[in-house]
């Protein structure tokens, strides 16, 4: 085994120049895609549960379609199509944000659908008995409970999403992995750069999943 590693080139200057810029983008992409994905995912879930065919069928096709294509292909598709549709070129970063919201909406919609279905029918009937409209019933009774029940699953999906942001590599967007790679190339130390990237990703994801596990326990006791 050849362990001739040298991490001494990592200093604060290098980290702030190369890695932090990428980390900022990765985190921003994760947060925006989670919020956007939950928003559009909830709409998709409500469409699928509406019982109206003209809402249900397109939403089902969209969700199943997105879920059977590799994320890398979706990233490439959007990078190709969005400029054609809006008639001007867009940057890899903007394209990545649009792609991740659209892609994650499909996954979050499955989670929200399960969450809404986990609410006992009696809750809906109780809302109706109080004279609530469909919108009020959803907003005040069903969705808050569904959201809460599904919180650990939503957060787990966010961790997966954070890992998946590294795939913007395909269109050359500057995320954390790219930051490490560029730093490694500039200093002729690619091996150390990849190892450091792995350690940082591991630490962040492990910490997050540990927090989710704790939250899960807390929620489980209250219910």
């Amino acid at each position: 085994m050849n362990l001739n590693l040298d991490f001494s080139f990592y200093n604060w200057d290098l980290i702030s120049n190369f890695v932090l810029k990428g980390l900022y983008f990765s985190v921003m992409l994760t947060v925006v895609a989670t919020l956007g994905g939950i928003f559009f995912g909830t709409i998709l879930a409500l469409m699928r549960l509406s019982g109206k065919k003209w809402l249900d069928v397109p939403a089902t096709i969209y969700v199943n379609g997105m879920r059977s294509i590799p994320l890398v292909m979706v990233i490439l598709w959007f990078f190709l199509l969005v400029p054609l549709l809006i008639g001007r070129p867009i940057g890899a970063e903007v394209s990545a944000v649009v792609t991740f919201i659209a892609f994650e909406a499909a996954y979050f919609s499955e989670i929200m659908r399960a969450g809404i279905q986990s609410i006992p029918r009696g809750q809906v009937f109780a809302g109706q008995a109080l004279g609530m409209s469909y919108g009020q019933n959803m907003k005040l009774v069903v969705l808050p409970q569904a959201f809460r029940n599904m919180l650990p699953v939503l957060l787990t999906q966010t961790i997966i999403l954070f890992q998946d942001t590294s795939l913007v590599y395909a269109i050359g967007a500057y995320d954390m992995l790219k930051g490490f790679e560029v730093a490694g190339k500039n200093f002729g130390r690619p091996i150390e750069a990849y190892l450091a990237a792995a350690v940082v990703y591991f630490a962040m994801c492990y910490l997050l999943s540990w927090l989710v596990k704790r939250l899960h326990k807390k929620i489980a006791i209250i219910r």
Partner: protein
Amino acid sequence: MSWDWQVFCEDTIERQPVESCFGKGGDITYLDWMLSAWGWTVSVSLLALLLALVLGIVIGTLRTLPDRPMVVRLGNAWVELFRNIPLLVQIFLWYHVVPTMFPVMRGVPGFVLVVFALGFFTSARIAEQVRSGIQALPRGQRYAGMAMGFTTFQYYRYVLLPMAFRIIIPPLTSETMNIFKNSSVAFAVSVSELTMFAMQAQEETSRGIEVYLAVTGLYILSAFAINRIMAFIEKRARIPGFVVAGGAGGH
């Protein structure tokens, strides 16, 4: 916008249409290239699946052993390690770091390294499913096996695992479909699978939409085929009167 599907019949060097759409002699058309890329996707996925199943079943089972805290802890560490690093980073580690650190691995082709990366990555997920499958069984089954005088190996082999495998077929189906989707990440280390083909053919021909549509179609076709095969296995393996609830998987 106009379609130009003729692009698949062009050979990849001169960009001249070939009559039969399949290249003759040493020449290949884009159609030939795409089909060979599909072959790479399928081979990477199936080999990685095989590796992931073997590792995942062994590690998942070890994680449920009673009175073996060290083994359980090692199994948990394995799962956490391979679950918390993005697949792309793991592929880079296998492709760039492993051959440098272990000179034995230097001659190994990239294709094999990607199979290792994808297989180890997926093994952690399968280990998790196998563990939850075994733990979903009523405790009485284990005790019944012990009461019959079975050894630990025997009650796993004859009592727990046969039931656990049937329980985990639905999540295993989505994991198998995930392997096919995840194999697309191999583009990053220049394995000439479908996504790599899509990127290069798009660049060379500028007929991105046609190329992407065809590649996406092949991915959907593969996913559908797996879905049918696993449904068939599930049906054949079903025990009358024993109903198991389906599970859902991530991506």
